[in-house]
């Protein structure tokens, strides 16, 4: 069928902020879709609240709205733009849910907007558990015994009938939020209660647990002419029971015979035909390892995380083709973009093995429950490609950047056999490494199979790896042995360890012996057809297919897996850098290991190497490509961390030099530099013992900010208010020693300011200054940032411009830099300088229309800012106010304290923009998923130091008609100040306690600054978690509370009586 000519304008809904369960894959899908629609000549209007995405670049769509994805705002845009059609299936669950909400509101009908692609009826059939089960029964396809329940009684009745274990799946939630496996009444009570709360339709599916079966996925596509194909099938190494987003996955399936493969293929195609899917779809199946019995687990009637993985695993661009199918094109009339010579209507053939390993945030959240189940917890993932399974999984392991380069645990010697068994039986983030250790201790694969249900095929392969360690150890620097090890994916670091040598020595020895990898192409067709796609992976084989061109090249290092502190913002900058390099006339080469991203779309760069970002893997590519240099400043800490090793090996680091990077990041050198430049920083010193820390603390005065010097990213950083707290911190949180000093800095209360700038070494451009809502002490990534600053004097702004310019020049920055300042008692101090791309680069680039990463890249390549026509100094602000609001995924992570502090906790961000700060904040908060009510109750429990400040906040809440609930201490303070307040009991008290208030939904907002600390036992912790689990916004900073109050005030009217006047006499 030809493409549709009766529609001209199409609205695409994005997926909003990055949260657990919905990450960068939708930026990739959305970007592809928008470009594909534009390519076909349609006018594309995009709405997405996430400014950190490529898709919200104005080049990607004809009109871009960075607005909240809510009924209110999308409806407004629909009315304004009057599109002919809407494409909802490329924005994840968010986009899909929004489309359903729009449809139900009647606006689509009113404005005559058609839904393209898969019809809503099909979406309902796939997503609504009841309808789905009915359809499966009609098709005679098996689903596990299940029942839809709406309350706990129904759940208990089901369990009486079926027995434990059962799985709880809340309807219409992403990433399985609120669900889980229950083995007993207690777990059932907890999980069902929270599941019902999370389901927007208060509905859960209870189903018989089929944990232990093989979990197989098919990524399928269908067009309007009923052509249907399988793009890729995948096998989860972790059997059914662990969310597929949290499973280690291989593609293609490894243990299925052709009969099993075709049986499940037939089922998948039958289902998408019955659903009349038009576009991409994901079918998850469970297969009994001992028979041909199978079950359908679920169907996602849209582009998903798995389809991004399948696209990168095969080269087949699912989202792009799904978008074209939505406008009527059929698979048989579209070309396969990879070969350019064959058609899209075919099934990719792989000649390699792909492994995906999720990346979990447990390094940041040490108190979180690390066990894995049906609710996804990973923030991101890595993918690796190899010609053997061993190579593929070991490459994936070292792509994770969790400190592992092999199937090895740190401190394994200290672990008991019982502990190893426990951690293999109960799936967790480190199970793979525990299995490695178990095998090393001689546990048989049959036993591990019994513990984990993982297929013997995979366990055999893992055993191959572990067994080969012994061969290696016995044969140092033997060519044949080393060759086999490299073909099994062993890292040089592992060889060095086994050979008592150094990584670099091993690397050089291999090079001398010509034991180096070749690069093979990912071409969708196993070399059957010639293709020119520049998408490569490294492997130890004979023939190299990646040929260096005559054009001078520049390598850009990507940022690896999405994790807390290193999100999609860095991919954004990476992609812009690649574009700038191409524009500057060089060949742009990218190395990255993250399958979710735009940067690993092969059409972005001139050459894509899908490889781990380790020194070994990067150096081999450098050796082959002989680039002009390597750009490290856009790939976050991942790339920066490689800079020193690259330089050691003689590679040119483009942009800010290694010495200058170090001057900004090394504390002593930085202090020295600041001294030279003449810019003040908060007083601070280094302590090598607890005693010394206390002396320093007393000397510089409390509160102080303490942190170990050897950990990056704000981990284990704390603000302490007195000597006792400091002593406690020194005793329990860190181990200070001369090798591991602890930094003690004066904590300055004041306004935190963030500045991003671009420098060519001589000239500095400052696109913008941002003011944080939360005072210094909250990690900048977790603060609400406001642009332009609302409370700064001209003098301060001038000073910030002056400092920033001097810092950029003084530190010899070439490229981007990000500076955090604090203004305390009228004085500006520098807190830190990051000589690289920052989290706020996309936010500022979009607001100011200054493509920062591009300009910086050109500066790095030698074009001065004036020669690029870039105005120097602070760029003028556009009209309006812009806020960046962080988004958290606390609901997914049990036992994590949500208190904001110096450690970053957010997973994503949204932007709110409007003409006033209040309106912008409203949009930002709403886009971040907070419900803002213009009336109701606020529950306040604040710590002693915050009580005075709390009074004014409480008073303002009262004056707009909010009711105040508070615990005894807070209530007393408020009453004393004459504020009406209802006292509620503390946890454990008789009668109604604050937990009841939260659980029963009697408070619309919780403000809690109580006892910080990570002990789950503390009351403050309980209150905060209870709020999260019950979906009540909980603010842990009075600054955020004040901001929200301003918003509510602006939405409503005062309820103040007339002043009492004396009677005239």
């Amino acid at each position, binding site marked *: 069928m030809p493409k549709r000519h009766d529609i001209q304008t199409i609205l695409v809904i994005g997926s909003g902020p990055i949260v657990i369960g919905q990450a960068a894959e939708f930026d990739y899908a959305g970007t592809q879709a928008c470009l594909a629609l534009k390519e076909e000549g349609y006018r594309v209007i995009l709405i997405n609240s996430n400014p950190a995405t490529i898709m919200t670049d104005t080049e990607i769509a004809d009109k871009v709205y960075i607005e909240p994805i809510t009924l209110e705002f999308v409806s407004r845009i629909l009315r304004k733009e009057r599109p002919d059609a809407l494409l909802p299936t490329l924005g994840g669950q968010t986009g899909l849910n929004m489309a359903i909400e729009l449809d139900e509101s009647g606006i689509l009908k009113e404005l005559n907007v058609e839904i393209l692609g898969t019809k809503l009826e099909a979406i309902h059939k796939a997503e609504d558990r009841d309808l789905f089960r009915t359809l499966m029964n009609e098709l005679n396809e098996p689903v596990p015994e299940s029942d839809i329940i709406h309350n706990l009684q129904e759940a208990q009745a089901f369990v009486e009938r079926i027995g434990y274990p059962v799985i709880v799946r809340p309807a219409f939630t992403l990433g399985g939020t609120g669900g889980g496996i229950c083995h007993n009444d207690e777990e059932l009570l907890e999980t069902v209660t929270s599941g019902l709360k999370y389901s927007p339709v208060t509905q859960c599916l209870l189903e018989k647990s089929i944990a232990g079966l093989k979990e197989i996925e098919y990524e399928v596509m269908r067009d309007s002419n009923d052509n249907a194909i399988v793009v890729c099938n995948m096998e989860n190494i972790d059997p059914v029971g662990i969310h597929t987003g949290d499973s280690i996955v291989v593609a293609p399936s490894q243990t299925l015979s052709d009969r099993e*493969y075709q049986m499940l293929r037939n089922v998948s195609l039958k289902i998408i035909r019955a659903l009349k899917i038009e576009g991409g779809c994901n079918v998850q199946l469970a297969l009994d390892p001992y028979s041909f019995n199978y079950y359908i687990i679920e169907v996602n009637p849209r582009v998903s995380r798995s389809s991004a993985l399948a696209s990168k695993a095969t080269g087949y661009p699912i989202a792009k083709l799904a978008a074209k199918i939505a406008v009527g094109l059929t698979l048989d009339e579209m070309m396969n973009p990879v070969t350019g010579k064959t*058609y899209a209507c075919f099934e990719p053939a792989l000649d390699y093995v792909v492994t995906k390993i999720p990346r979990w945030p447990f390094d940041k959240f040490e108190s979180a429950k690390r066990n894995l189940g049906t609710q996804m917890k990973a923030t991101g993932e890595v993918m690796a490609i190899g010609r053997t399974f061993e190579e593929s999984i070991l490459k994936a392991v070292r792509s994770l950047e969790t400190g592992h380069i092999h199937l090895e645990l740190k401190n394994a010697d200290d672990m008991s056999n019982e502990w190893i068994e426990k951690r293999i039986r109960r799936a967790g983030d480190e199970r793979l490494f525990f299995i490695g250790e178990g095998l090393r201790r001689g546990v048989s694969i049959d036993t591990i199979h019994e513990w984990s249900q993982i297929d013997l095929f995979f366990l055999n392969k893992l055993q191959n790896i572990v067994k080969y360690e012994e061969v290696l150890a016995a044969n140092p620097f033997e060519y044949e042995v080393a060759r086999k090890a490299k073909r099994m994916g062993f890292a040089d670091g592992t060889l060095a360890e086994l050979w008592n040598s150094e990584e670099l020595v091993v690397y050089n020895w291999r090079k001398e012996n010509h034991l180096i990898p070749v690069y093979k192409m990912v071409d969708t067709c196993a070399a059957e057809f010639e293709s020119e796609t520049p998408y490569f992976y490294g492997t130890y084989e004979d023939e190299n297919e990646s040929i260096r061109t005559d054009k001078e090249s520049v390598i850009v290092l990507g940022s690896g897996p999405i994790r807390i502190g290193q999100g999609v913002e860095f991919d954004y900058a990476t992609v812009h850098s690649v574009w700038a390099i191409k524009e500057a006339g060089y060949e742009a080469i990218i190395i990255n290991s993250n399958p979710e991203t735009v940067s690993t779309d092969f059409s972005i760069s001139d050459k894509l190497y899908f490889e781990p970002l380790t020194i070994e893997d990067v150096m081999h590519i450098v050796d082959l490509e002989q680039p002009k240099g390597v750009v490290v400043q856009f790939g976050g800490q991942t790339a920066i961390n490689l800079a020193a090793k690259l330089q050691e090996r003689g590679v040119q680091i483009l942009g800010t030099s290694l010495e200058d990077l170090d001057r900004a990041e090394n504390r002593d050198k930085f202090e020295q530099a600041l001294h030279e430049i003449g810019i003040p920083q908060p007083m601070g010193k280094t302590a090598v013992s607890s005693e010394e820390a206390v002396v320093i603390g007393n000397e510089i005065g409390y509160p102080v900010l303490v942190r170990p010097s050897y950990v990056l990213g704000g981990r284990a950083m704390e603000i302490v208010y007195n000597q006792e707290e400091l002593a406690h911190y020194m005793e329990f949180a860190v181990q200070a020693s001369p090798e591991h000093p602890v930094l003690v800095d004066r904590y300055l209360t004041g306004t935190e300011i963030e500045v991003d700038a671009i420098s060519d070494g001589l000239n500095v451009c400052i696109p913008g200054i941002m003011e944080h809502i939360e005072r210094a002490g909250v990690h900048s990534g977790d603060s609400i940032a406001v642009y332009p600053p609302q409370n700064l004097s001209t003098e301060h702004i001038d000073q910030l411009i002056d400092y920033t310019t001097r810092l950029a020049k003084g530190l010899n920055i070439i490229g981007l830099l990000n500076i955090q300042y604090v203004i305390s008692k009228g004085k500006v101090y520098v807190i830190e300088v990051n000589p690289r791309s920052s989290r706020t680069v996309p936010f500022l680039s979009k607001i100011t229309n200054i493509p920062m990463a591009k300009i910086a890249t050109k500066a790095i390549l030698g074009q001065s800012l004036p020669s690029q026509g870039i105005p120097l100094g602070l760029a003028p602000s556009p009209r309006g106010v812009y806020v960046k609001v962080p988004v958290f995924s606390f609901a997914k992570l049990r036992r994590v304290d949500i208190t904001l502090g110096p450690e970053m906790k957010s997973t994503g961000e949204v932007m709110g923009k409007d003409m006033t700060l209040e309106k912008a904040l409203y949009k930002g908060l709403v886009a971040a998923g907070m419900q803002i009510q213009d009336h109701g109750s606020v529950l306040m429990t604040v710590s002693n130091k915050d009580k005075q400040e709390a009074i004014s906040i409480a008073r303002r809440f009262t004056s707009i008609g909010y009711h105040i609930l508070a615990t005894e201490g807070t209530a007393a303070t408020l009453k004393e100040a004459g504020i009406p307040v209802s006292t509620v009991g503390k946890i454990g008290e008789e009668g109604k306690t604050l937990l009841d208030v939260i659980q029963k939904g009697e408070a619309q907002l919780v403000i809690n600054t109580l006892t910080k600390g990570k002990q789950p036992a503390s009351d403050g912790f309980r209150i905060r978690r209870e709020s999260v689990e019950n979906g009540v916004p909980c603010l842990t900073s009075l600054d955020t509370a004040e901001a929200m109050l301003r918003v509510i005030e602006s939405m409503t009217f005062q309820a103040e009586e007339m002043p009492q006047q004396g009677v005239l006499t």
Partner: protein
Amino acid sequence: MLKRSLILETGDVFNGTAFGSKKASEGEVVFTTGMTGYQETLSDPSYCGQIVTMTYPLIGNYGINRDDFESIEPAIKGMIVRELAETPSNFRSDITLNDLFQLKNIPGIEGIDTRKLTRIIREFGSVKGVLTAAGEEIKVEDTIRKLKETTFPTNQVEQVSTKRPYPSPGRGKRVVLVDFGMKHGILRELNNRDCDVVVMPYNTTAEEIMAIYPDGIMLSNGPGDPKDVPEAIKMIENLIGKIPIFGICLGHQLFALASGGDTFKLKFGHRGANHPVKDLETGRVEITSQNHGYAVDPESLIGTRLQVTHTALNDGTVEGLKHLDVPAFTVQYHPEASPGPEDSNHLFDRFIELMHDNANVKGEKQHA
């Protein structure tokens, strides 16, 4: 583990490890891109005389089971894999692929860069090659020279076809299945439809076939060049118009030759489980399983009574034919799948319908 080399007439030499039989072997080296189905592939008689390269690198993962053979005696000359699974894992697995190759005396080689080999075949076309005897040193130059001079036997069909007819009884339509190197899958599909099947040798005459009063003729797949079996072409010529015919693969090519068309050799053939075929009547595409080195020349069909019904989406080659006057249709691909997608399985139903319709027409004629 003994060493073994693969030497090609192009002069390329691949050194790997031997598995299966220790003997040397020579044949036409081809590749298949199917990611599953190695057991069906190795036992598909259409690969007679060929050494098959598996482009998917991990082969043998789910072992060898008693069910998935497409013939009793594999006819391939050898198999080339990147990695052979030592310990398969699947509930149906009986023995390993290595065990089977030893049992059936078939040589194999593992550990070579199969993608490089595939690219050579893609550039050069199907190529003659030798798998050396396991552990034996060999003079490469001599081997290449000899290889270039060698012509392989052209009697593959004779090698794999049944020597005498045998029945596979059912209560439905009587089908004569002419065995040019038949995959068991074809017989299975007919039996599933309750056909009363008689399998007959490739050199059976039309008279012999008609003498058992079939309702339809099934022309099977088979190895090699269709022009190497002139007796079959003649047989088919004499059947066209008398009785419904369904041809698959070699059967399709023979049918085209018997109807006045011509065939030619493809550069490196179509072998795999992902080949899109377009049905020109419905406009729909099916993903098919394919294994052929020759194809029907569409130009040659001008002036015949054959119409092209299906084409390969990618290279436009002829994938299906029908006779304009009489009930007969053929496809170049494998509707019986095994291995591969089962999208075209409905063609067997169409054959059954064709036999029904034909019986009705005959009935009407007789009673007219």
